[in-house]
């Protein structure tokens, strides 16, 4: 994958070494003219081509983002109104209102990891061109939502348990998830060659999937202060409908918010790679090359 290595790991030194190889690749029409470089599954999976084409992705994103953002905002308004209009819990009183941000953030912290695991499979198995961008873009968002989960849980724990933090199985496993997110962000930043970073992050993400069942079942496997599942459980939710619908609305709002932020972050990643590619071309010093590329299409 000569273009990919030079495109993603572009430094002046590396560019000097690889420029001729990369220029040949680009001039062959595989790098910028075609939506999916040959040898990466493009010929075998034509239905994936449109989804894999970063230019098409940018166009779809441009149209979809305003609608998704508006829907997320509307859901937040409805969810927050429902949360503050909901009656207090018979045991926890008004402190139960923390549930409407804590629980959706907790769900998102695991859901985003599932998204990253799927993207990792896309990188390692199907070699989808946007999979590593999706994985990279999701990691900081996962860290953000897990941070919200940990802090709001701590603020809920103090009035209910009498402590901000206990080394409880659920709390500790979510803290490990948070550290894993930070580790993945650090991994992406510490490896210059983004192709190598993508594979390393994908493998680490897939290995780390083991944390998800531990988080989910920690409240069943160990004696913990944290309450067991009360929404997604056999026998149905144990929460009353007046408290449940705002919770589910907020969960949907958090999910849409993540979708919006993820699409925006993937778009940034595509632009970052386009800049790296243009920088590489400028370093290759080919005015004629630039003209040929401009005539042949922009690619990503």
């Amino acid at each position, binding site marked *: 994958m000569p273009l990919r290595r030079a495109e993603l790991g572009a430094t002046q030194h590396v560019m000097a070494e690889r420029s001729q190889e990369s220029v040949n690749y680009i001039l062959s029409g595989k790098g910028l003219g075609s939506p999916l470089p040959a040898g990466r599954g493009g010929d075998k999976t034509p239905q994936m081509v449109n989804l894999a084409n970063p230019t098409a992705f940018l166009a779809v994103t441009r149209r979809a983002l305003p609608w998704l953002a508006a829907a997320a905002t509307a859901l937040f308004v409805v969810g927050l109104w429902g949360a503050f209009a909901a009656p207090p819990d018979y045991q926890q009183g008004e402190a139960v209102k923390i549930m409407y*941000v804590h629980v959706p953030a907790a769900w998102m912290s695991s859901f985003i990891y599932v998204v990253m695991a799927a993207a990792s499979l896309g990188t390692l198995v199907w070699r989808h061109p946007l999979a590593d961008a999706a994985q990279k873009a999701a990691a900081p968002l996962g860290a953000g939502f897990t941070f*919200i989960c940990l802090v709001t849980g701590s603020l*809920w724990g103090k009035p209910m348990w009498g402590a901000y933090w206990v080394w409880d199985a659920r709390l500790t496993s979510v803290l490990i998830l948070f550290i894993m997110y930070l580790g993945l962000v650090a991994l992406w930043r510490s490896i210059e060659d983004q192709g190598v970073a993508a594979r390393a992050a994908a493998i680490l993400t897939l290995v780390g999937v083991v944390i998800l069942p531990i988080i989910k079942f920690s409240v069943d496997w160990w004696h913990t202060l944290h309450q067991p599942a009360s929404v997604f459980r056999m026998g149905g939710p144990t929460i009353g409908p007046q408290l449940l619908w705002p919770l589910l609305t907020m969960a949907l709002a958090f999910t849409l918010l993540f979708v919006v932020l993820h699409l925006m972050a993937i778009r940034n990643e595509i632009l970052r790679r386009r800049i790296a590619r*243009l920088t590489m071309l400028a370093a290759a010093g080919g*005015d004629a090359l630039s003209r040929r590329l401009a005539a042949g299409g922009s690619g990503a």
Partner: protein
Amino acid sequence: MSEIPHIGFIVAAYLVTAATIAVMIGAILVDYRRLGRALSRLEATRSGDDAK
């Protein structure tokens, strides 16, 4: 308002959530604008080279 039990914890939880979401949105938007400027500069340079 201050008579509501644990109001400080509730307000703090919502403030932390709002601040974290604002930071995530802000970071992505700042990055997008920075990348857009860099891309415009590069394309302008390329256009200048072509014009020579």
